[in-house]
């Protein structure tokens, strides 16, 4: 009598990480992703303000919770951006 044994180990498949190339455009849309921790908005807004002379127009997006990754609808809002700045730690 033969016994069929299943392998309980799962597989994790993920595309290899590759950092995005830096855009060569002159006018840039800078996504500012606020993780909702205290002062994150203030610090990120200051950075965006200082980057304005670099021809970076800021698009502010706030995610629902710092304890979870940004949901698809938040990432969708950032898709139009050329660069993103995010943080912070509290």
């Amino acid at each position: 009598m033969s016994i069929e044994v299943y392998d309980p180990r799962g597989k994790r498949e993920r595309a290899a990480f590759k950092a995005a190339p830096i855009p060569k455009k002159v006018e840039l849309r800078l996504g500012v992703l606020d993780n909702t921790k205290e002062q994150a908005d203030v610090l990120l807004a200051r950075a965006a303000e200082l980057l304005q002379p670099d021809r970076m127009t800021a698009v502010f997006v706030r995610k629902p919770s710092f304890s979870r990754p940004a949901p698809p609808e938040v990432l969708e809002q950032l898709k139009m951006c050329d660069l993103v700045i995010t943080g912070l730690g509290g």
Partner: protein
Amino acid sequence: MSCCMRDAGALEALGIPTVILVNDVFDAIAHATAALLDMPESYVPEHVVWLPHPTSNLTRAEAAALIDARIERIRGALAGKPVADVPASRAASGDALARAREIVEGLARSLRADGAELVLESFDDGILRGRIVIGEPSCEDASCIMPAPQLAKMIEAMVRSQIDGLRAVELVAT
């Protein structure tokens, strides 16, 4: 903080270069999350700009000053011309050898209880070198405690995320 790293990973996958402002107290978490996401070791130094913790109790003026002092790092990282940044917590802990000694002190105490002494002697060209002193002639290669190569691997796992530029740990038994 690990979620900020995950967000960066998701945005990079969408083709959007991302720079992350991170409080230096989250140094280990940022590195560990980057490793979990299969980011190269260069990702954190090139894409993270460290801020001194805490930031939540700053006045608006203090918060602005904090960013003002780091805007060139932020600008460089966004332009793909990063100025390698080291969290203040690492810089404050002195050189890499001193930092490694601090990290393995708990392990060294355990080894001392078994009559052995762990001595980290140098950090050159990315190699952290040390000795495990047994003082027992019959205990070749420290195998009565733990074989030196295995102990070296354990030390490497402990210090890897905390020591910039670490390539290997080499340990000899004497």
